[in-house]
């Protein structure tokens, strides 16, 4: 419970930060300086982490096979779950990245009548997918603040997202979905004893921070409308490297910004780097072709072996006695 408490306090402190800064007249820190610092941290950190992984050698071809491998021509192989080549790997990775294929296998277990019973447990997969996809859509929708004129596809995406026209302004489906996803992921961690047992500060903090971003965003859209023109002017200012300290922008917006920039800056140092790491996972992005194609280990080095000569020298007498052929008499 301690980790939950500390995460909550950390997020509340971040929420109070903009108000404190504006009280001492330092709002510009958040609107004009923090964005660049956060983006710099994010980009440099992200690239650094990816490069560190990418330049680490992959000594062995260790793909985890989840389907029949390619063998005899009349045996039906599974080209995606046990890919034998490039295209299969791409398909497998696409399934993992876009559809969370492996998580879809999820089951749970309970001992019923003296034996383990495996149940379907797709909720984690469903809510995980809901969360990630809606997050992606929300980020894409926000591009409207960074381009002028607004690209038609962004408008179309927003229109589709608000298709049901519930409420005024329209409730975006992605907003509802991300709330459902986040709530599930957080409650699961807090309520399920095993999940609580394995969870670290960072696990709660990531969820609460993102929940902070989402909540402040929703507050601005539905309850404390922000001046969208001022927001756009600010965002365009960032993009054109001529930021201005905006007037008339609400405290909620400042909190929103503060959460986002902390998230960005923290991202590369945290478990959130799974977003980049998944592409480099050797059990998934390698073909199951290790008997077909030679795989090179860059640090392969000679080792001490026991040669046949040494073996025969020790056992020659016994081999001859048993009538086994020997090389030296």
């Amino acid at each position, binding site marked *: 419970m301690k980790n939950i408490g500390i995460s909550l306090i950390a997020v509340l402190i971040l929420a109070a930060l903009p108000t404190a800064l504006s009280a001492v007249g330092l709002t510009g820190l958040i609107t004009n300086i923090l964005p660049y610092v956060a983006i710099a941290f994010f980009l440099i950190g992200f690239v650094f982490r990816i490069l560190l992984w990418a330049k680490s050698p992959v000594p062995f071809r260790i793909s985890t096979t989840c389907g029949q491998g390619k063998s005899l021509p009349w045996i039906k192989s*599974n080209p995606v779950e046990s890919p034998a080549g490039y295209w299969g790997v791409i398909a497998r990775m696409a399934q993992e990245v876009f559809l969370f294929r492996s998580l879809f296998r999820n089951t749970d277990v309970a001992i019923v009548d003296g034996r*383990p019973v495996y149940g379907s447990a797709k909720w984690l997969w469903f809510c995980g997918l809901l969360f990630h996809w809606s997050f992606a859509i929300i980020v894409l929708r926000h591009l409207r603040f960074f381009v002028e004129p607004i690209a038609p596809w962004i408008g179309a995406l927003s229109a589709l997202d608000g298709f049901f026209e519930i409420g005024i302004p329209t409730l975006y489906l992605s907003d509802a979905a991300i709330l459902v996803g986040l709530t599930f992921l957080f409650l699961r961690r807090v309520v399920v004893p095993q999940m609580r047992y394995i969870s670290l500060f960072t696990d709660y903090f990531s969820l609460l921070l993102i929940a902070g971003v989402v909540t402040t965003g929703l507050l601005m859209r539905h309850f404390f409308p922000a001046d969208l023109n001022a927001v756009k002017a600010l965002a365009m200012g960032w993009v054109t490297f001529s930021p201005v300290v905006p007037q008339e922008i609400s405290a909620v917006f400042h909190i929103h910004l503060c959460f986002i920039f902390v998230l960005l800056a923290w991202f590369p140092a945290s478990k959130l780097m799974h977003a980049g790491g998944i592409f480099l996972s050797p059990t998934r992005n390698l073909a199951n072709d*290790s008997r*077909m194609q030679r795989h090179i280990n860059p640090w392969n080095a000679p080792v001490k072996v*026991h040669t046949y000569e040494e*073996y025969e020298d020790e*056992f020659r007498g016994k081999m001859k006695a048993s009538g086994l052929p020997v090389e030296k008499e």
Partner: protein
Amino acid sequence: MSFAKIPKPDQLIKISYAPPETAWMDTPVDFRPGTWSYSGAAKNLTYLDLPNPRAWQPADTDWKLPADWQAIILNGMKERLEKYRSFRLFLDVCVRCGACADKCHFYIGSGDPKNMPVLRAELLRSVYRRYFTTSGKVFGKIAGARDLTVDVLKEWFYYFYQCTECRRCSAFCPFGIDQAEITMMGRELLNLVGCNINWVIEPAANCFRTGNHLGIQPGGIKDMLEFMADDIEDRTGIRVNVPINKVDADILFVTPSGDYFADPGTFTCMGYLMLFHEIGLNYTFSTYASEGGNFGLFTSAEMVKRLNAKIYAEAKRLGVKWILGGECGHMWRVIHQYMDTMNGPADFLQEPVSPITGTRFENARATKMVHITEFTADLIRNGKLKLDPQRNDHIRFTYHDSCNPARAMGLFEEPRYIIQKTCDHFFEMAEDTIREKTLCCGAGAGLGNDENMEMRMRGGMPRAMAVKKVVEKHGVNRLGCICAIDRATLTSLMDYWVPGVTVMGVHELLANALVMTGEKERTTDLRGNDMNIDVDKSI
């Protein structure tokens, strides 16, 4: 095999999944008898030039570690972080979603949260954070970091020798994090300070010296194989040849030494001998490369390579065309995913072609080693074998996918094809427990020793219960597999959880059904059991 010291099955099944009151970092490891393996004997470490040979046991307070053991471990971690992307990545990207947690047979069977793959990895990850990441160095425990202490090392030992490297968790992880990789690294690190188990190190030392894990010397191998030939003659009236160390054979045959050492593996080995005789294969066994398995895999990558080197070296010395490998699990992990990389290229061998059917095994064109079920399935498909599946009517068969052929090769259909052609009573276990979701025997990766019996029975429980289900539903009496460790350890597991079910290799099943040229009337199977009982009718 004695179950005297461990709780009865109805007690053992009372498993609680409620985590302890204390946080995992504050819960010290308890070396309870029956749940750990004896330490590696000094003589074996010395023979293999491994560090810190000494007399000690895991339950001792003082493990007699070298004075600078922390520096050795941390340097070892640094070296491995630089050598393995898998290690660094898998330490970095876990989000603790918990999808792996209840996929581990040891967790399902013990309820110990440190047997959740996620937490077993955190044992190492927490030390990685403390010494190799900024957040861990600065924020310590709040960042999930902790100091490397003797207690942490003991915890590593206990739990990295409670993982069979079966890779089931890796099939369910959204990032493909493979606990086997973490365990392998953990065991390599433990080996740097001389902490390993005798059930791994003695076979490795034996294998280095005598060519096989069991330490069988050349004459012994010949005697055992000849003894099997006697038994075959007794059952079939046919005397099969036992070619050993034969220069200029077409094919070198390599199988785990468990297959010629003890029942029920020997029956599988008799199956190979009968098959090769019947098709007139020009092949040879080797006493120098008399082990397909590789307990180096449970020690270090270097040891894998040291033990594996013999196979190509012997193939070259004998001048064979290619290599055929018997039924074994972790052996095939090594052959399929490591051998060519470590000890290849095998450019002195030819691309494998079946001398009987002419089939080219393109999937083995680089490594030049073919799995026996690929070879046999091809024979059957091409009508080269006369089979009478009714001879297996006394067997009601279910099939256990051995972990490594399943999740490190994708070998699912070849053995099933052979089974379907040789047995009319084949019943699959539940979908969640076979193929890529197969459950471990609970005793792989060197854990199949007697002192670890309680943990083996716990770890094997999910597999055993899946068997029990088909026993109740279909009257199954035989559990088949393609792994030598399985044949040895599933036997104990069945005796404990599902008495009455015996274990066999697929090539024993084949040999029962194989109609051999010039054979006498077969009345018994390879085990000497009456084969004229149709269990269907007797139930």
